[in-house]
């Protein structure tokens, strides 16, 4: 379960950053992204997939979250 730091890039894209793994990728898609549900499976720019826990509301970004590698 790597700790993932989420931040918004200047162009508005979400960046998925894992310091330990040296991984800095854009998030291309996220399973749930609505005012009452956020998280689930995300697909990164390099095609790899991770999953966040599903939250009741979109979190305030920047933020560090745990993600599971799929």
């Amino acid at each position, binding site marked *: 379960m790597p700790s993932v730091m989420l931040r918004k890039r200047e162009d508005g894209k979400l960046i998925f*950053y894992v310091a330990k793994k*040296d991984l800095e990728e854009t998030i291309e898609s996220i399973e749930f992204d609505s005012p009452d549900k956020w998280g689930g499976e995300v697909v990164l*720019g*390099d095609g790899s997939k991770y999953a966040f826990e599903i939250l009741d509301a979109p979190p305030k970004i920047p*933020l560090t979250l745990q993600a599971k590698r799929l």
Partner: protein
Amino acid sequence: MAAMTREETEALIQEVLEVYPEKAKKDRAKHLAVNDSSLEKANKCITSNRKSLPGVMTVRGCAYAGSKGVVWGPIKDMIHISHGPVGCGQYSRAGRRNYYVGTTGVNAFGTMNFTSDFKENDIVFGGDKKLSKIMLEIEQLFPLNKGISIQSECPIGLIGDDIEAVAKKAAKETGKPVVPVRCEGFRGVSQSLGHHIANDAIRDWVLENRDGDDSFQTTPYDVAVIGDYNIGGDAWASRTLLEEMGLRVVAQWSGDGTIAEIEKTPKVKLNLIHCYRSMNYIARHMEEKYSIPWIEYNFFGPTKIAESLRKIAALFDEKIQAGAERVIARYTAEYEAVIAKYKPRLEGKRVMLYIGGLRPRHVIGAYEDLGMEVVGTGYEFGHNDDYDRTIKEMGNATLLYDDVTGYEFEEFVKRVQPDLIGSGIKEKYIFQKMGVPFRQMHSWDYSGPYHGYDGFAIFARDMDMTINNPCWKNIKAPWKNQVANDEALKAVA
């Protein structure tokens, strides 16, 4: 020599790899690449931040070097104890040329070496007592110090000393910050992990010191300069530009910096990152914890400076934006004169670089401003994200080499025949003896600053005096110089 095509460069890499045994070849092949600027991501073409191969010549440092030498060392009003045997600190003492103002030994300690000088006894019985004693001694001898950091060398981790406990106790006694840093040299694959550990130590032991204390008067124009180590005065040359455009520089991390500045950084409005590699961690942390945005900028060469000033100004109001334009306009005549003078002497010259944190990509623009071309570049300890940022800056089909070995670098130079090499002291004399003009690009070869408009003028002059130095014509022994001999004979006859 004409530029090499993609095929030629690929063939060169293959040829150089030929001498390695099968396994080493496979490993090194991943670290050498031909640049393809159309790629978005560097991990498609190059691997980085891996353990160096045993048996090859690498110029990497250790985690202690990254923490003590790079991040903590320049904080001038703290005393940084090189905790362990004397050598690690003594052989790296004052080598980085981080300039500072202050009276050394009284209120600034940058070029001094403090060490616990471990002996066999300390290894066997532990060094915690000795460490507490040193800190008391420091308080007596150097009462104006503003804090202490304990920079662990290899043995500390091996014998399992509890430096955190000693630090906490000492901090209570002196009332000043005492920061234990677990940067033993064996951690990680290069100095890069040392930067990270040092950032984490600042985060855990310093950054929160003034949380909840609002006595510091802030303005909407407060910024911090992060990752400028004031090599030869770089941070000063950068700072003037920012101040001229109307910003207030609250903190310098860490060249000519103080612990008070670091503690105040969470109050700024924007963090400006110059050396991304060594300090992006803390910027990311401050973004998350204090909602301070950060941006990367580049103060090498007028093109990049103007770009960066505008990029920074765009995040502020019109007053700052007008300020940025005013600064650019004010220096235009100055840098145009520099270019007019040196470009004719440097135009078309080809450069190969092999350096550390930010320079393999950041200085490219400065060379291009002088009409020069960078045909090969590489990082000692870069990560993927560094190469991501590099492939766009470099021309197509140029060479990229990660953690290059002594042998590879020499072979590349022999074939590519650059007019100038910019790298470190360990490479300097080899290439000078091969007859290739060389600049030491870690400490600016005892020159500098190179940042900012003022720095650019010095940069241009230095490159000119190196490349166009008459000595390069006399490298070959006169009797080996067939052409010269023939001409001399003709003259006699």
